[in-house]
């Protein structure tokens, strides 16, 4: 009979019993609703052991890849350790590069510590040593790079971003936890088209995902929309134009709400722009990153334009002081 390890204790799972039933019997109340593998309320993660195929039906590819499963339909065949998140080791590294990408966005490159593994598009939690102030930043690099690249926007009164802009220097030590996040590319269905939309520094994870997708030789058309209030807020324009020139199936579209429109770009509300160039999103895999309000709008737009819910990946950023 398998044992289930959860939050420091072991629970016995009887024959033909699901993990949810076993936990409930032991007084551990995991939130659940339909108890039939449909509503996904009881989704939890296997930290050790393999969840049954049945218990991963209907989950997104990125969640399956991280061993999430539905406790209500999982009858374990081996000992498992389950939980909501892994405890991340703390990594310490040094700043190897710091440069402005535009007036309010700085690129920080950290030496990638050995043993640190991630998927392009995930994020890390950077911690300031002297007061343990912690903020999440998306990785713009890909695992093959020697560095971890971050794009950091200066937030008015932002404690971490202003410190990074004004005080952090090359060779300084930085520590972080991670990685986390489920907005990344899982290989497969290489001929399907991709839609990537980012606002502001929402470009960071997309820049990583884009380079990852190209490295994995994705065949389908790739649309990248980078949106900002004005052209001054865009960045990495040159690099992205060069990538698009090199890859015929990559379409880069800089978008602005107001003012001058860059060459090949679009003006207007980012939620309305993709429909001007793409008739239907049926069959598309969609990645959305940046401002939470806009990301939510874009999720709905993508779904209503035909993208399947399971193919919409998003990372809404929360900006705090």
């Amino acid at each position, binding site marked *: 009979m398998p044992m289930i390890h959860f939050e420091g204790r072991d629970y016995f799972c009887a024959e033909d019993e699901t993990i949810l039933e076993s936990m409930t019997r032991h007084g551990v109340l995991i939130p659940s*609703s*339909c*108890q*039939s*593998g*449909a*509503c*996904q*309320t009881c989704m939890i993660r296997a930290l050790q052991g393999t969840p049954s195929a049945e218990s991963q*039906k*209907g989950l997104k590819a990125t969640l399956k890849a991280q061993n999430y499963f539905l406790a209500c339909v999982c009858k374990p065949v081996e000992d498992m350790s389950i939980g909501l998140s892994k405890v991340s080791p703390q990594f310490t590294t040094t700043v190897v590069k710091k440069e402005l990408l535009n007036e309010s966005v700085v690129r920080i490159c950290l030496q990638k510590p050995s043993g640190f593994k991630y998927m392009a598009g995930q994020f890390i939690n950077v911690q300031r040593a002297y007061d343990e102030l912690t903020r999440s930043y998306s990785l713009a690099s890909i695992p093959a790079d020697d560095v971890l690249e971050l794009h950091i926007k200066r937030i008015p009164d932002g404690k971490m971003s202003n410190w990074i802009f004004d005080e952090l220097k090359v060779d300084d030590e930085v520590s972080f936890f991670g990685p986390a996040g489920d907005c990344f590319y899982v290989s497969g269905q290489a001929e399907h088209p991709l839609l990537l939309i980012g606002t502001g520094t929402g470009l960071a994870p997309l820049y990583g995902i884009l380079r990852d997708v190209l490295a994995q030789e994705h065949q389908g058309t790739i649309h990248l929309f980078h949106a900002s209030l004005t052209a001054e807020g865009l960045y990495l324009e040159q690099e992205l134009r060069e990538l698009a020139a090199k890859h015929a199936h990559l379409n880069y579209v800089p978008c602005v709400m107001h003012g001058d429109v860059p060459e090949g770009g679009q003006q207007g509300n980012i939620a309305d722009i993709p429909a001007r160039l793409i008739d239907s999103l049926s069959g598309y895999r969609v990645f959305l990153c940046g401002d939470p309000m806009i990301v939510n709008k874009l*999720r*709905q737009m993508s*779904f*209503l334009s035909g993208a*399947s*819910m399971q193919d919409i990946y998003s990372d809404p950023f929360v900006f705090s002081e």
Partner: protein
Amino acid sequence: MSSVYEQLGGEAAINAAVEVFYRKVLGDHYVNRFFEGVDMEKQAGKQKGFLTMVTGGPNNYTGKDMREGHKHLVKMGLNDAHFDHILCHLRSTLAELGVSQDLIDTVISVAESTRADVLDR
């Protein structure tokens, strides 16, 4: 006799139905205000649970769940007319997926049986 759920093709068929159904609901301005600000994925999960239930698939929903889950919407003004819109979207979703009229009627009658709980009467 096998359930409508099995006759439709089980879990995979319900997955496809949820997408069609939820698009119709979100596109309907008469009812979509009830879905504003909710997490689309969680909502789709609930709808999958609902469709599984009304088609007679495996479920453990109770009238109490339906009542508790919709109370805040009743406070926002959810009434019979909104419920009718949802039934109508359910009917046209099933028709679009090629479900026969008698099976649609069966599903609708199950959905209809939740009306009092959903509207908290």
